């Protein structure tokens, strides 16, 4: 029972990171109808900048802010400099370029910083609070949960409650109609990419201290799991990313705790397969809209 509480709590913290990264994939999917396979590599670039800033200044928070800004800038730069210039008749050129970008960025990072794992120190302790003799959750896990929840809440508010959010949604759903209403659609796509990669960078910055350390492949597994989460939730659904993220986080944590760490990816794969068989659009896919 004690173990269950601990596994559930850490599962939720990991799940929050997964949900945030999956949400970043949903944002870029909605903005540009692209699955960004380079999301992890781009996020890790931002983490290296956060790492360097923290090392230079001694402040975790400065590194965090710099990492987010770097993620946003990298997202905008990749959209403006690369993705926008591709033919958009099929999604294939975008996917291939994204995969190419992964190789370029990861090799570049390995050349510049070496392939070794650099331990990243968390800003709070990782030893769990003990309540009534039961270990529950570490202060760092709590920080991760609160940060991810706050950022996802802020993003939800941005999309649902502001003029910018209305423009972003309209540009994603109906680009031509939006242009006819004066919305600068190309700018909205750039903003979507910037928001998306910044969110992914935050997820990676939160994750890396709980893993072996920073290295060019530090977010690869995060991407794989988050992609599964995004598909399980329905690529178009932010709520789906959140629910599926927390669910998969707990699933991974329980499988790791009660079975073995190597069984966890299998459990995710089994869940993904089941969802694709039973509800191919994802658990939270909207009913097909009636058109015209």
């Amino acid at each position, binding site marked *: 029972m004690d173990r269950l509480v601990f596994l559930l709590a850490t599962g939720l913290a990991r799940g929050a990171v997964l949900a945030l990264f999956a949400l970043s994939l949903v944002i870029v999917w909605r903005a540009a109808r692209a699955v960004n396979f380079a999301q992890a590599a781009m996020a890790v670039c931002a983490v290296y900048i956060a790492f360097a800033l923290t090392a230079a200044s001694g402040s975790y928070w400065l590194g965090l802010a710099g990492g987010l800004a770097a993620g946003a800038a990298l997202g905008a730069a990749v959209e403006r400099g690369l993705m926008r210039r591709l033919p958009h008749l099929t999604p294939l050129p975008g996917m291939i370029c994204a995969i190419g970008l992964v190789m370029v960025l990861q090799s570049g990072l390995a050349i510049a910083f070496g392939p070794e794992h650099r331990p990243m120190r968390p800003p709070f302790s990782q030893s769990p609070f003990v309540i009534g003799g039961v270990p529950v959750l570490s202060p760092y896990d709590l920080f991760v949960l609160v940060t991810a929840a706050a950022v996802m809440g802020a993003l939800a508010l941005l999309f649902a409650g502001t003029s910018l959010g*209305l423009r972003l949604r*309209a540009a994603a759903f109906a680009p031509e109609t939006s242009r*006819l*209403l004066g919305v*600068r659609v190309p700018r909205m796509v750039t903003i979507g990419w910037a928001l998306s990669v910044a969110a992914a960078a935050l997820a990676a910055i939160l994750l890396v201290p709980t893993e072996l350390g920073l290295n060019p492949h530090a977010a690869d597994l995060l991407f794989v799991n988050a992609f599964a989460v995004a598909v399980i939730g329905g690529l178009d659904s932010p709520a789906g990313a959140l629910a599926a993220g927390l669910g998969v986080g707990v699933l991974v944590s329980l499988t790791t705790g009660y079975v073995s760490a190597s069984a966890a990816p299998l459990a995710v794969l089994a869940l993904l397969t089941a969802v694709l068989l039973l509800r191919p659009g994802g658990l939270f896919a909207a009913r097909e809209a009636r058109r015209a």
Partner: protein
Amino acid sequence: MSALTVDRLTVGYGDGAPVVADLSLDLPDGAVLALLGANGAGKTTLLRALTGLVPARGGRVLLDGRDLTGLSTEDRVRRGLALVPEGRSVVVELTVEENLRLGALWRHRGPARARAVAAAYELFEPLARRRHAAGHTLSGGERQMLALARALIAEPAVLLLDEPSLGLAPLVVAQLLGVLRDTAERTGLTVLLAEQNVTGALSVADRGVVLSLGAVVADRPAAALAADPALRHAYLGF
């Protein structure tokens, strides 16, 4: 003063023959012009080229005397051009209210935006009852009403409409055309109304232009055009 001048506009797709060829057209301020023609005459292509959705091969489009050539669709809209495209174009994932606000965004700021949305509900009462309904739950008539309201909310100088009556019940068509005529008279809005519904379009228009194979073949007062059976038979198919 011309609100919209089309000067020797040529438009085509790919390497194909031009769909609109060397077309000139003049819309005086406050005019309601019916753009008639059979399927494939080039009405939709002309309207899309005017808004910059389709690039022109040659010629110019002037709005209030200012050249729009080279401007993006967004910038043409912000200069006062509005298009309600065929097929209603409601963003079905958004609510009625969100669709209206979207139309008002670039034109109105702060409290003026809420006032503009409220004024649209007054003009189109059935929309007020559905304000929080998602676009995909609206009927065809409601969608066309919303698309028109959303275009008018930005107070355009020139409104382009592509077959607003398509697939709608006659009663709904009459209601929409009535609102259009009233708005044009009240605000001095200039309208270019592309229609296959010849009778309906000519009943609200001052003038009618008949398009065939991308060229203007007739340009007359609406009443004269409506009374010319030979022309109707030759170009409009009835």
